């Protein structure tokens, strides 16, 4: 469906729109404005663009100061630095006082590719999810990314927005309107539910097609808001399809799979299988090769679904 666009490009576009409509928006970047796509905003609204240099911790606490004075700061850098390097600043100075700071984290996941394991953020969802009151967003394509970024600007409180480097196919049409906190059912089916987030949503749909050809119909649910998670939709999936597979470009520890499991075991335990990075660091390589190596292909989702169905209670 149309051209391939990266969610970081959607971020750049959304910021320019926000700059025009909301005078409270300010954008901070840590020497990555071309990569994070904040450069367009910087060019158009130079007085509201704050270049912080290579100082992510300083950037997060500066954003907090701006927020206490009524600004809506978008602090932008790579996911690995936004969450890992500046964790204490995000936790204590943004999260603890529940300030209205938006953390835009690009180059998330292993599809950042050639830079290798040091730059492949596969723990960021876990780190952000555990901070009380932090909202965690992980859009599936550029359409969803742009709409969620605009929604995040209106949302009161700290928001983590996970974005990617690689251009993606569009999963959604331009009239699609996601709502923070609300899951989106994309396919219906009886045998199992694939709950996917981010770039894995498209792969989940491909997996559903493969399974359909084999005569197995599965439900596909897109979770763009990992926190607060749409528990009602997950519980429905557990009741109605009795087997769940989660799919995320993140460690299987602490991310979507963990969040879904927390809901399922407390409400209606059913078998769950995880598609994600299995307690390993990444390595250099092209994204397609990495997705194969780290078991993140549609075929891996298919295998996980079949395994989950095999574990269903009779």
């Amino acid at each position, binding site marked *: 469906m149309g051209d391939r666009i990266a969610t970081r490009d959607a971020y750049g576009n959304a910021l320019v729109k926000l700059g025009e409509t909301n005078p409270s928006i300010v954008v901070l970047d840590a020497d990555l404005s071309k990569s994070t796509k904040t450069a367009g905003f910087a060019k158009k609204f130079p007085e509201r663009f704050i270049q912080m*240099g290579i100082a992510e911790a300083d950037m997060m606490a500066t954003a907090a*100061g701006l927020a*206490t004075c009524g600004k809506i700061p978008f602090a932008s850098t790579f996911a690995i630095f936004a969450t890992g390097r500046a964790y204490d*600043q995000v936790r204590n*100075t943004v999260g603890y006082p529940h300030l209205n700071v938006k953390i835009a984290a690009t180059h998330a996941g292993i599809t950042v590719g050639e830079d290798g394991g040091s730059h492949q953020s596969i723990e960021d969802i876990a780190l952000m999810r555990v901070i009380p009151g932090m909202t965690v967003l992980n859009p599936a394509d550029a359409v969803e990314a742009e709409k969620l970024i605009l929604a995040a600007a209106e949302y009161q409180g700290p928001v983590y927005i996970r974005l990617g480097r690689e251009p993606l196919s569009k999963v959604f049409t331009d009239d699609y309107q996601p709502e923070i906190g609300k899951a989106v059912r994309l396919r219906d089916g009886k045998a199992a539910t694939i709950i996917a987030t981010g770039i894995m949503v498209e792969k989940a749909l491909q997996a559903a097609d493969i399974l359909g050809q084999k005569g197995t119909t599965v439900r596909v649910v897109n979770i763009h808001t990992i926190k607060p998670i749409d528990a009602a939709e997950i519980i429905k999936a557990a009741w109605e399809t009795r087997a769940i597979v989660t799919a995320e470009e993140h460690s299987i520890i602490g991310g979507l799979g963990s969040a879904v499991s927390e809901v399922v075991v407390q409400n209606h335990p059913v078998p769950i299988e995880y598609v994600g990075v299995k307690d390993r660091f990444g390595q250099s390589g092209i994204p397609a090769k990495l997705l194969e190596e780290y078991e993140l292909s549609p075929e891996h989702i298919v295998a996980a679904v079949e395994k989950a169905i095999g574990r269903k209670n009779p």
Partner: protein
Amino acid sequence: MLTSAQLAELNEHARQMRGHIIRMLAASKSGHPGGSLSAVELLSYLYFYKMKIDPQNPTLPDRDRFVLSKGHAAPVLYSALAERGFFDKELLQTLRQFGSILQGHPDMKRIPGVDISSGSLGQGLSVGNGMALAAKLDRKPYHVYVLLGDGEIEEGQVWEALMTSVHYKLDNLTAFLDYNHLQIDGTIEDVKSLTDPGKRFTAFGWRVVSVDGHNIAEIDRAVEESESVKGQPTMIVLNTCKGKGCSFMENQVGWHGAAPKPEEAEKALQELGLA
């Protein structure tokens, strides 16, 4: 310039704040007296003379801001806020107790008049920069004051923030270094050498003034002068004595994070003429 009557009044507020600090720490049986007592004169000056603030309207949009970057010195901030009327002085006795607004370190969500939560060291100057940048963006006249500890500036983020203040020419921000020479494990020089911090700040592009941190007239002169300088932030190095005003705490490493026992509190209050 302060009149002698104003000076006498500010010194009296400082004396009362010392009393509050001793009493609240004795009641809580935990907390940080040393670095609270060393900053009393500065907070008396800011909260009773310098800052445009309104205890009846703690979130007044154009108020001056204060950032206690060394958040463990919460008792000095709480004593200033209570003495100034932001909340009932009786509440000081609830310091660090379950359910109290007065958390071990300042929590802006609970305490009226606290402009930012703090406690994890090294972050306050960055926050102050953000506030000062917001004032510039909105062309607002408010000023931002940040208090740093001397041990605290061992945190690398402080030096990132020092660069940011200079880069953005934040002349609407004044920082203070509480140079009392002590931290938890010993003297600053023993733990991590900090020979002539003023030289280091100057090298980073700051305007630096060094004053007697217990002399309010000197603090006032330095602050007034700093606010007439355009295009450059000022760091006022406050030469202070940790535990000031309580003879047995003065310059003692052990009084960084220990509360006085009842008989010690009594002695301290006697020395202050508040028993």
